[in-house]
């Protein structure tokens, strides 16, 4: 018998199970109790209250975090106000030096931060490692470069810092949103009181440690943890000159109402219901990747997620076949595993919201598709989901789900695509897939969306401004435009 003879069953196919490949979690030390970071020191909260933050993949409590009350927020704003006097007068090149130092420390400690981000938020380690951390560092690098060039950023004007900026960030990209907010604020000479989301406060607290390590002057960055109430103290504090908020449209409206007549500057980055538009001449296999990246990236917890797929009717069938096949290869599970594509839903409340909206989709008559997918027993999970036969009037086509749920609609002509894509209260982003360059330009001119991606999706760069139309908010973050929110040009 020949040496190579093997049973035919072994040649018939190959069931390849990737062995678990978890990133080591002991690289990061999480304190059992975490204080507030005010005036360059970690301090006990006046409230004496603490709340728990859990790992959404296991429901295990990771740590207790201080809940800042009105007095705590007042102390933080005062510390920031105090620091503003010297920070705003510091030689710009020296300000830049601190910000550069922060960027380098973010890079040096990126593994630690990535693991922490994944533990606290549930996102796959490959995303926190390859997207969140590099981009966060890049934002600091980018704005550090502007710090001593503000006169060139706004020629013939005299840009001056505003004062204390109150910043509230969401739980979907905790550290990256922190970078988007803090980097331009510091570069322009402002000081900051930042409140991270209550379900993901840990990376902001580690960032506070990095500020210490960078020897940033006390009070330039203050971190107050807490829930919505703490956020409202930050927003309404009279010492705050500028408010920047990223989060839900609902809360954004409340903030704008509250700030009316106060003279405080405001930028809002809110929800979205983006259309990802695929024309019949699109490179299909790459469009499928773009669709997957658009809606299943970070479990769909992305304000600019491509949650509505608008596909030209003539290619609906082959595209959906490919898409369903691709969904079957998504690997859902332990977010710390380097091979995981879809992680855990950020919180119990968010899971309930997603489940509710998906149920409404089924009730309203859309056809649901979910690949065969074993969900872990503990933790908050939702399988990648696809709805076909969706019409514009369905809730799943109108409301932001903020989960791994895609609604598929069809169109026949470019005009119809524009009309349907714009027919939403939101206007944050859009995607266009076609081989025809002229059509990309034609479409882009007509889309009411802050960002339009062509033949790609969810691409970010610190030099490129990001922001919304309509109920997706106003103001831009990133790029030269991102500085505008933090300077007074009068």
């Amino acid at each position, binding site marked *: 018998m020949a040496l190579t003879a093997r049973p035919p069953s072994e040649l018939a196919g190959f069931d390849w199970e*990737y*062995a678990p490949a978890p990133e080591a979690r002991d690289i990061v030390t999480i304190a059992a109790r975490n204080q507030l970071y005010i005036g360059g020191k970690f301090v006990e909260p006046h409230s004496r209250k603490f709340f728990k933050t859990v790992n959404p993949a296991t429901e295990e409590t990771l740590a207790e975090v201080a809940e800042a009350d009105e007095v705590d927020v007042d102390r933080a704003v005062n510390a920031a106000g105090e620091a503003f006097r010297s920070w705003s007068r510091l030689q710009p090149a020296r300000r830049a030096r601190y910000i550069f130092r922060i960027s380098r420390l973010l890079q040096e400690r990126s593994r630690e931060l990535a693991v922490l981000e994944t533990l606290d938020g549930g996102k796959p380690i490959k995303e926190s490692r390859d997207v969140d951390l590099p981009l966060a560092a890049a934002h600091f690098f980018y704005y550090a470069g502007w710090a001593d060039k503000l006169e060139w950023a706004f020629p013939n004007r005299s840009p001056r810092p505003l004062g204390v900026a109150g910043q509230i960030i969401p739980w979907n990209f905790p550290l990256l949103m922190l970078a988007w907010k803090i980097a331009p604020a510091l570069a322009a000479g402002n000081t900051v009181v930042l409140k991270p989301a209550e379900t993901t406060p840990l990376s902001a607290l580690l960032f506070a440690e990095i500020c210490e390590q960078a020897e940033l002057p006390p009070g330039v960055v203050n971190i107050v943890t807490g829930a919505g109430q703490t956020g409202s103290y930050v927003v309404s504090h009279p010492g705050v000159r500028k408010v920047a908020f990223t989060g839900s449209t609902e809360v954004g409206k409340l903030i704008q109402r509250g700030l009316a007549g106060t003279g405080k500057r405001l930028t809002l980055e809110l929800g979205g219901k983006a259309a990802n538009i695929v024309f019949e001449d699109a490179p299909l296999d790459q469009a499928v990747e773009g669709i997957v990246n658009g809606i299943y990236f970070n479990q769909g917890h992305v304000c600019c997620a491509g949650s509505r797929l608008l596909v030209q009717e003539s290619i609906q069938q082959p595209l959906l076949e490919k898409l369903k096949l691709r969904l079957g290869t998504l690997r859902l599970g332990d977010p710390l595993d380097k091979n995981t594509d879809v992680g855990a839903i950020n919180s119990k409340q968010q899971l309930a919201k997603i489940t509710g909206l998906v149920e409404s989709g089924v009730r309203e008559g859309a056809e649901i598709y979910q690949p065969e997918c074993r969900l872990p027993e503990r933790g908050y999970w939702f399988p990648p989901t696809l709805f076909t036969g969706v019409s514009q009037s369905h809730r799943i086509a109108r409301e932001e789900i903020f989960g791994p749920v895609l609604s598929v609609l069809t169109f026949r002509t470019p005009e119809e695509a524009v009309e349907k894509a714009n027919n939403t209260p939101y206007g944050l982003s859009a995607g266009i897939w076609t081989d025809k360059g002229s059509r990309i330009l034609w479409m882009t001119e007509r889309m009411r969306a802050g960002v339009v991606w062509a*033949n790609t999706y969810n691409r970010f760069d610190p030099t490129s401004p990001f922001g919304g139309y309509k109920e997706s908010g106003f103001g831009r973050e990133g790029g030269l435009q991102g500085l505008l929110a933090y300077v007074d040009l009068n």
Partner: protein
Amino acid sequence: MATAVSRSGGTPPTGGPGKPFPPPPPLSHLGSLMRGVRSVDQVGVEERAAALGKRSIKKASKLAALDLVIRCMDLTTLEGADTPGKVAALCSKAVRPQPGDASVPSVAAVCVYPAMVPPAVAHVRGTGVKVASVATAFPSGQTFTSIKVAETREAVIAGADEIDMVIDRGAFLSGDYQKVYDEIQEVKEAAGRAHLKVILETGELGTYDNVRRASILAMAAGADFIKTSTGKVTPAATPPVSLVMMEAIRDFHHETGRSVGFKPAGGIRASKTAIHYLVLLYETLGPTWMTPDRFRIGASSLLNDVLMQIAKERDGVYQSGDYFTID
């Protein structure tokens, strides 16, 4: 009155009143068909291929992959200096890659020049290892079709189980798809029972759109396998080129039901690279493609690195190169 005529309202191009249109000759519009092949987005395909390169394949899954890499390997020597002695050594290595360790399987085939087929056949007879011969004026393909066909026939008569032909890139790039198609068909016929692998030489095709077109052209013309490169041109196999070819195979299978194999070749020297190709295959074409019938890796110097990695997975330490035979 024929309905077709009355509907068009003009003179029928062929036939006459009362006669139906004859079916169009099957390949008369090959050029326009080829130009109608769906495009590939360069940025997207490179991004996806790179992302799959970040899969972390460890422990049991790594051992299984390395075993499969050996079973799917076309151990290759394609040098002007090849001699019967060199080929004999290659064949021993192919049959028994790790002397004294029966758990290491034989490779799928040895791949040699036509003149080296007879000694290769003599050495692998009865072992299950196949003999593959390059043909059709490898690597350039720049000769007369009659000679390519004759070379193929001779190689098969000499005992080759598999033929690795090259496409006429000159004809392809000048838009003469018909010539490329016809030549593959003729070689396929000359190859008879031997398996035909069609080398696209993607490094000379210039764009992913061309790679996709050439893949579909070769499969339509009867290729059993499509193969990236000769190994004589840089770049040879790359992950994104392979992904484009695999996606073409997937679409072709979906439309025709025919399963065509895939073979990356050229420049694959490290186990890690080989495993990257397996990941691409697994996540694009799925487990049914992960057999030597549908997947091969062409390599001349990969085998020892794979053996070294297997030993390392088993013992936990790397061994010196001297523990692996150089043939």
